[in-house]
C-alpha cells in the first residue's frame, strides 16, 4: 500500500488507521495533520521558502512502507559508534534487535507505542503556527518514534546514536522523535542517515524541550543514498541558562530539506546552529533556519558552509528574530559558499528581523571560489592541485564542525569532507 507520500486519495487516513504497523493511539494528531493537508498545498517554486527546491517530481511518486528488511549498517558508522548505545530505525521502524539501549542511569528511551498523546502535549510542534504540508503529512502518517528523557541534574557521558536506514526501492518512512532534557541535565544525540542506492523518501520530525540550565548537543550526519529524499523538521524550545548546540552535515542524498526552528524562551541562553553541505552531481540541500529570541541576554550563532560542484545547489535561508523587549542579544549568522562548477548554484538568504534596540546582530554571506593564491602557494611547495583543493575545502568547512563535542564523530566528518572533495 502506498501511504507516505503523496496523498492523492481520500482514503489515506482509513488506510493508516487500518494498518496495524503504524504506531496507534495518536488519532488526534493524525486527524489534525490530515485535516491541515486539505487546506495546505504542497510547496511549489512560488512558495517564498521553497523558491529554489523543486518537489513536484517527488510528489508524483508513490512510496510504500516496508518494515521487513535485513539492513546493513555501514562499517564507518559501526566504527564510529563503538560500544555506545544506539537506536536503529529501519525504513522508519525502530528495530530493537539491532539497537542497544542506554544503560547509564538518568536516561530513558520509550517507544511511542507505549505513550499517549497527553504524554507528549508539552512538546513544541510548530513555530508560530507555521504549517508546511510535509510537516502535516508527517503528523498524519508517521510510522514510529521515540521519546528520550534525561533526568534532572544528570550528565549523560555516552552519546546516544540514532541510525536511520532506508532500504529497498520506493520506500518511505516518517518518524516523530521527542527529546526532553530536564533542569541541569546534559546529553548528546547523534543521528545518522544512510541507505542503499534506491529511490526513497524520509519525513522526519524532532522536538526538543531543553529546561533551565540544560545542555543539548544534537548532530545530524547525512550519508543518505544517492537517490534518497529527505524532509526534516527540528523544533526546539530552550529555557533560562540553557545551551543548545546543533549541527547538520550533509554529504549524501538527492534532495534534502531541513527546517530548524529554535525559540529562545529564557534569559542567558546560548544557541549554536552549524551546518555544512558538500554536494556534487545533482544534489540539493536546502536549509531553513530560524532563531527566535523571545528573551533578553542571549547569544546565538549560526555558521553554514556549502561547497557545490557539478550541478548541485545549496540553499541557506536563515532568519534571526529579536522580539520586542529582548534586549542585549548578540546574534550572528554566517553563510559561506564555494562554487566549483559553472552549473552549480548557491542561494543565500540570511535575514534579520529586529524589534529591540539594544542588540548586536549581524549576518554575512559570501559566494565565491577557492583562493587561487592559496592553491598556487601549495602547488609551489609540491602539493598536487587536487590535494591542495581538498585541504582548502577541509579548512573552509572546519569552523562549521568545531562545535561537535564527540571526537570520533568529528573525525568521521573530516574524512567524509576529504573523500567527498576527492570526487569533484
Amino acid at each position, binding site marked *: 500500500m502506498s501511504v507516505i507520500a503523496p496523498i492523492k486519495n481520500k482514503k489515506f487516513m482509513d488506510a493508516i488507521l487500518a494498518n496495524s504497523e503504524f504506531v496507534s493511539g495518536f488519532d488526534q494528531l493524525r486527524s489534525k495533520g490530515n485535516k491541515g493537508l486539505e487546506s495546505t498545498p504542497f510547496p511549489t517554486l512560488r512558495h517564498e521558502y521553497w523558491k529554489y527546491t523543486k518537489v513536484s517530481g517527488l510528489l508524483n511518486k508513490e512510496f510504500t512502507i516496508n518494515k521487513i528488511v535485513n539492513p546493513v549498517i555501514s562499517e564507518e558508522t559501526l566504527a564510529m559508534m563503538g560500544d555506545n548505545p544506539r537506536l536503529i530505525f529501519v525504513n522508519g521502524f525502530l528495530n530493537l534487535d539491532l539497537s542497544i539501549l542506554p544503560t547509564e542511569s538518568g536516561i530513558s528511551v520509550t517507544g511511542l507505542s507505549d505513550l499517549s498523546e497527553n504524554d507528549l502535549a508539552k512538546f513544541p510542534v510548530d513555530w508560530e503556527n507555521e504549517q508546511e504540508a510535509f510537516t502535516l503529512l508527517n503528523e498524519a502518517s508517521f510510522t514510529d518514534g521515540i521519546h528520550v528523557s534525561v533526568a534532572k541534574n544528570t550528565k549523560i557521558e555516552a552519546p546516544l546514536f540514532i541510525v536511520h536506514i532506508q532500504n529497498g526501492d520506493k520506500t518511505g518512512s516518517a518518524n516523530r522523535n521527542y527529546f526532553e532534557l530536564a533542569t541541569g541535565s546534559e546529553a548528546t544525540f547523534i543521528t545518522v542517515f544512510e541507505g542503499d542506492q534506491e529511490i526513497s523518501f524520509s519525513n522526519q520530525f524532532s522536538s526538543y524541550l531543553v529546561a533551565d540550565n540544560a545542555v543539548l548537543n544534537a548532530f545530524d550526519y547525512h550519508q543518505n543514498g544517492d537517490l534518497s529524499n529527505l524532509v526534516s523538521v527540528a523544533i526546539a524550545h530552550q529555557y533560562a541558562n540553557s545551551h543548545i548546540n546543533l549541527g547538520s552535515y550533509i554529504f549524501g542524498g538527492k534532495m534534502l530539506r531541513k527546517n530548524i526552528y529554535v525559540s529562545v524562551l529564557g534569559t542567558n541562553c546560548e544557541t549554536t546552529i552549524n551546518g555544512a553541505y558538500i554536494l556534487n552531481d545533482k544534489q540539493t540541500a536546502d536549509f531553513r533556519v530560524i532563531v527566535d529570541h523571545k528573551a533578553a541576554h542571549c547569544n546565538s550563532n549560526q555558521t553554514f558552509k556549502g561547497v557545490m560542484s557539478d550541478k548541485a545547489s545549496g540553499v541557506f535561508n536563515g532568519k534571526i528574530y529579536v522580539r*520586542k523587549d529582548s534586549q542585549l542579544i548578540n546574534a550572528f549568522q554566517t553563510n559561506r*559558499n564555494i*562554487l566549483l562548477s559553472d552549473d552549480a548554484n548557491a542561494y543565500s538568504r540570511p*535575514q534579520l528581523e*529586529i524589534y529591540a534596540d539594544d542588540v548586536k546582530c549581524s549576518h554575512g554571506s559570501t559566494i565565491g571560489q577557492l583562493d587561487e593564491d592559496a592553491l598556487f602557494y601549495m602547488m609551489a611547495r609540491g602539493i598536487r592541485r587536487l590535494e591542495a583543493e581538498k585541504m582548502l575545502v577541509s579548512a573552509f568547512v572546519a569552523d562549521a564542525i568545531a562545535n561537535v563535542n564527540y571526537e570520533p564523530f568529528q573525525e568521521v566528518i573530516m574524512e567524509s569532507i576529504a573523500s567527498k572533495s576527492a570526487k569533484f
Partner: protein
Amino acid sequence: MGYTESDLEKDLEGKEYGYGFVSNFETDRIEKGLNEDVIRLISSKREEPKWLLEFRLKAYRHWLTMEEPNWAHVKYDKPDFQAISYYSAPQPKKKLDSLDDVDPELKKMYDKLGITVEEQMRMNGIAIDVVVDSVSVATTFKDTLLKKGIIFMSFSEAVKEYPELVQEYLGSVVPPGDNYYAALNSAVFTDGSFCYIPKGVRCPMELSTYFRINEAGTGQFERTLIIADEGSYVSYLEGCTAPARDENQLHAAVVEIMVKKEAEVKYSTVQNWYPGDAQGVGGVYNFVTKRAMCEGYKSKVSWTQVETGSAITWKYPSCVLKGDYSEGEFYSVAVTSNHQMADTGSKMIHLGKNSKSIIISKGISAGVSENSYRGLVQVHKNATNSRNFSQCDSLLLGDKCGAHTFPYIEVKNKSSKVEHEATTSKIGEDQIFYCQQRGISEEKAISLIVNGYAREVLNQLPMEFAAEAQKLLAITLEGSVG
C-alpha cells in the same frame, strides 16, 4: 542632566512634518475613478498619438488581471483606485518662456521649501524641470542644453516633439506589465521628464526635477525616461516634498533609464513626501519602480537615495547589468520615524561578463517605525567573473521600532564573487562616552554619529544636493536633537 538618547526618542516621536502647507491655485481635474474612458480622456487631454493610447490601454487591461502584491514588510490600507482622480493639472495658462511667467503661488511654495527656482538657477546652474501635480510648468536652461544636443523636457512635450524616440524606449526597461504599480502607472501616467543625451556628450550641468503632490485626493503617476547614448554622461537629480494631507495619497512612479555602451548615468533622489502625523494618520504611499538597463560594454549606473518621507515606501531601484564590464551602484539612506514603514533596497541582475555592483544601504529607525532592507543580487550563468559587494547597516533609535534585512543572493557560476554583510545595532554608549570625554555634548555626539553613519552615502550625492539632503536629515533627526 544633558540631552540623552531617550530625549531624542521622545523628540522624534513628537516630530511632525515641517513642510505641511497647501498652496491654492486653480487646477483642472477630472472626476474620480478609473476605467478605459478615463484613460482615453487623459490621453486626449494630453493630445497624445494613437500608439501611446494603445500602450496605456494595453497596460490597463493587463493591470486588471493582476493582483496587488502583499509580500512587502509593510502594512497599509490598500488604496481604493476608484477614489483617485487620475488627472490633475494646474490650469492651462499661456506657455511659459521664462521663470517670470511662473505662477506666483507656485513660486511662493518653492520659497517655503527653500529651493527657489531662481536661486537654483543662479547659484547652481541647474536646469530644473518643475513638476507640480504631474504637469511640467517650467523648464529652464532648455536652450543651453539643446545646443549640446541634449533633450530635456517634460514627457508630454517629448511625445509631441520626439515621438519616435519615446516610442522606441518607452517600456523597454520597465515593461508595462512588469508589476502591479508599474502597470497602473503605464495606464494612467500624466507627465514626467524625458531626457536624451546624445553620443559622446557630457551633460554640463546637473539635471533636476522636483516632484510635489499638491492637489488633495490626487495620485501622482510620473513617468521618467532617460536615455544615455554611447559614451555620454549625465547626473540627474530628483527631489520631492509634499504638503501635509490627512488623506493617504498614492504615488506610483516609473523611472526608466537606458544606458548604452560606455555611458554613465548618476541618478540621485532626495525623497521627502509627507510621512503622516505622529499618530500615523495620512501620508504618502510611495510605490515606485525604478530600473536602469546597462545595455552595453562598460555602461554604468549609480543610484543614490536619501529617503526621509512617505508613510509607506516600497521601492527597489534596480540595475540590469547586461553589458560586459557594466557597473551598477546603489547608495541609500532610509530614515523612518513615527509610524513610517519602508521596504526598500536594490536589485542587481548580473547578465554580462565581468560586471560589478555595489550596494551600500543605511537604515535608521526611530519611533514605532519599520525599516526593511530587501535586495536581490542575481548572478546568471554567463555573467562570469562578476563581482558584488553589499553592505546593509541598520541603526535603531528607540525600542519600539524595527529594523529588518532580507537579502536574496543567487549565484549560478563558479567565477563570480558575491559578498553580503549586515549589522544591526544602536548608538553605542561607549561611542557617546568617548565623544563626551572630549568635550562634545551628548546631543552633538548623537548627531555626529548619525551623520558619520550616513556619510558614506551622502558623499555620493552631487554637491548641490548634498546640502539639501543634510538639511533633510537634520530636520528628520538632528533638528530634534538641538
